């Protein structure tokens, strides 16, 4: 038996590695995703006042702090037993739309476009955002502009792009000024045009990736996402809908407080990442996917005009249930369009300029669950507190956790098809990394390697001896 290590998987958020076990014929026998860092927020927040949780847990991530801020605040709303003012709901969702747009732009343009535009087998030294900038400056400009717009929405509302303290238990802490609303509205036409241009380009190039589409994690799985009462896509609110691989709804409108009746969590060897599963089916067969692809698979529609036109085309082209994880990219672009349209609708609601933005209360319930759709999928914050409001227990299920089992299966499928242990090529291993990137995982964003790209491939002999290794310059 020989083993190949992809250590670390690059162009993702956080740190992970992939091991590929080969048999004596050089064929892929087994694969595993290893998430090699531990953050420990569930443990070290114990004892902290519940109202600190939004600010503390936002530090989990530098890319999607808004997601944690919102999920934590919703959990705190539940602990306070308050219904937050309508204006605060609108403002929180606008902020969330801004984050979804900037995060999806980051994933598509900065992290995955180098594979999609420069090629899976292109020179790894150039296969990055700066190589993209050199060869496809128009697309790079679009990526920069779209991400900047999303960040400006966040900054306009919350005053800071990263780790703002604007969302608080009970609502938000400052109202929206008309000038800020008007500035965001004025930027929306260009942002929408950028996404539509990118969608057109992407759809026109799908045929180049027939082999990847065929083998990038299209094994059957369930899908989970939030929907509203009518079954439409929801990012800020709603209940969980589970569909099976054939598109049948197997659980619907699951309220946040009931998530544990449907979602179990297993621990995997060699990984710090928990592996949630659909409880009624059990572990490990209860594998499901979350995120843009899953959301478009479970929802009846998006609920905005341009996104719905794309939603219809997406399913007409690819089926009622779209199984291939390669299509996370496509779904992500449709959701970016939805995020912009939804933001526009919310900003045009007269109530958005309301001055009643925060409900005040103390501890009225010693347990609270907050749930939203983070850009990468369902995010759940679940807290228990004592009578003084100190956290006694916390459970966080992040989107990437939900996808853990599915990512592992996708890696296995891609490795089996593309990796030939007797003729190892960098492009083969890049496809393994690329299928991980398709999920846009956020393993964590606390620290980042500086300097060298961290690709390290080791080839072990049958007795475990190191035969060869490849380290990027």
């Amino acid at each position, binding site marked *: 038996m020989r083993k190949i290590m992809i250590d670390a998987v690059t162009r993702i958020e956080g740190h992970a590695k992939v091991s590929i076990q080969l048999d004596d014929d050089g064929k892929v026998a087994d694969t595993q995703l290893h998430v090699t860092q531990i953050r420990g927020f569930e443990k070290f927040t114990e004892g902290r006042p519940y109202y600190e949780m939004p600010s503390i847990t936002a530090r989990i991530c530098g890319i999607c702090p808004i997601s944690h801020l919102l999920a934590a605040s919703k959990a705190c709303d539940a602990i306070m037993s308050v219904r937050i003012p309508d204006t605060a709901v609108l403002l929180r969702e606008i902020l969330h739309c801004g984050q979804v747009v900037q995060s999806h732009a980051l994933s598509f343009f900065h992290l995955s476009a180098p594979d999609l535009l420069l090629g899976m087998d292109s020179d790894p030294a150039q296969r990055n955002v700066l190589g993209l900038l*050199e060869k496809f400056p128009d697309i790079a400009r679009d990526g920069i502009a779209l991400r900047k717009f999303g960040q400006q929405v966040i900054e306009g509302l919350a005053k800071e792009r990263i780790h703002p303290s604007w969302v608080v238990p009970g609502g938000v802490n400052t109202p929206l000024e008309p000038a800020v609303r008007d500035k965001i509205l004025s930027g929306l036409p260009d942002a929408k045009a950028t996404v539509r241009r990118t969608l057109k380009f992407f759809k026109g190039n799908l045929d180049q990736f027939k082999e990847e589409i065929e083998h990038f994690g299209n094994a059957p799985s369930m899908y989970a996402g939030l929907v509203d009462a009518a079954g439409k896509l929801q990012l800020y609110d709603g209940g969980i809908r589970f569909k099976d691989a054939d598109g049948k709804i197997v659980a619907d409108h699951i309220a946040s407080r009931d998530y544990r009746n449907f979602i179990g969590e297993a621990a995997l060897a060699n990984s710090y990442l928990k592996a949630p599963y659909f409880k009624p089916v059990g572990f490990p067969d209860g594998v499901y996917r979350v995120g843009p692809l899953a959301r478009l698979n479970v929802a009846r529609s998006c609920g905005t005009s341009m996104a719905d036109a794309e939603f219809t085309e997406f399913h007409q082209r690819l089926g009622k249930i779209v199984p291939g994880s390669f299509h996370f990219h496509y779904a992500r672009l449709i959701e970016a369009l939805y995020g912009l349209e939804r933001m526009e609708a919310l900003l045009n609601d007269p109530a958005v300029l309301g001055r009643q933005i925060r409900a005040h209360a103390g501890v009225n319930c010693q347990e609270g669950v907050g749930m939203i759709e983070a850009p990468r999928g369902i995010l759940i914050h679940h807290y228990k507190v004592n009578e003084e409001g100190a956290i006694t227990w916390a459970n966080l299920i992040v989107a990437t956790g939900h996808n853990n089992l599915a990512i592992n299966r996708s890696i296995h499928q891609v490795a089996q098809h593309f990796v030939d242990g007797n003729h190892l090529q960098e492009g083969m291993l890049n496809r393994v990394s690329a299928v991980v990137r398709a999920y846009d995982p956020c393993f964590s964003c606390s620290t980042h390697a500086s300097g060298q790209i961290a690709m390290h491939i080791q080839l072990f002999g049958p007795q475990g001896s190191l035969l060869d290794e490849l380290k990027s310059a």
Partner: protein
Amino acid sequence: MGKVLIIGYGNPLRSDDGFGWHASRLIARELAGHDVEVITCHQLTPELAEPLSQCSQAVFIDADAQGEPGEIHWREIQAQAPSSSALTHTCSPAGLLAGAARLYGRCPQAVLITVSGKSFDFGDSLSPVVSAALPKVADRVRQLVSAEG
């Protein structure tokens, strides 16, 4: 008068690594009303290429792990495309200038001011010796802004 863009970057929760963060916030207060844009961020990202293309002079402010603590270094930066293996998370000032030129057709003159740190441990304040460099750096930047005017 051309606009001056000041980019202070670093991690304010790792003590002296936050020098650029602290310096840019100080400068933003002191130069309020001037034709200056100040960006404070954790790290350099490709998005900065756009505002760089719209200014005549850029000032990058960062901490340095090398040198005597508190030592101030000032050097001009030229646009230079990254050679290889650049990650999204490790943009350099020279690479960003090259990006500005490539994407938007122009890049400014630029200087990089670094101050050697003493401690990069967890903490949200600067070492006294590094903190002492703050007014000196702010003064140099103020002179540069005046010269631009």
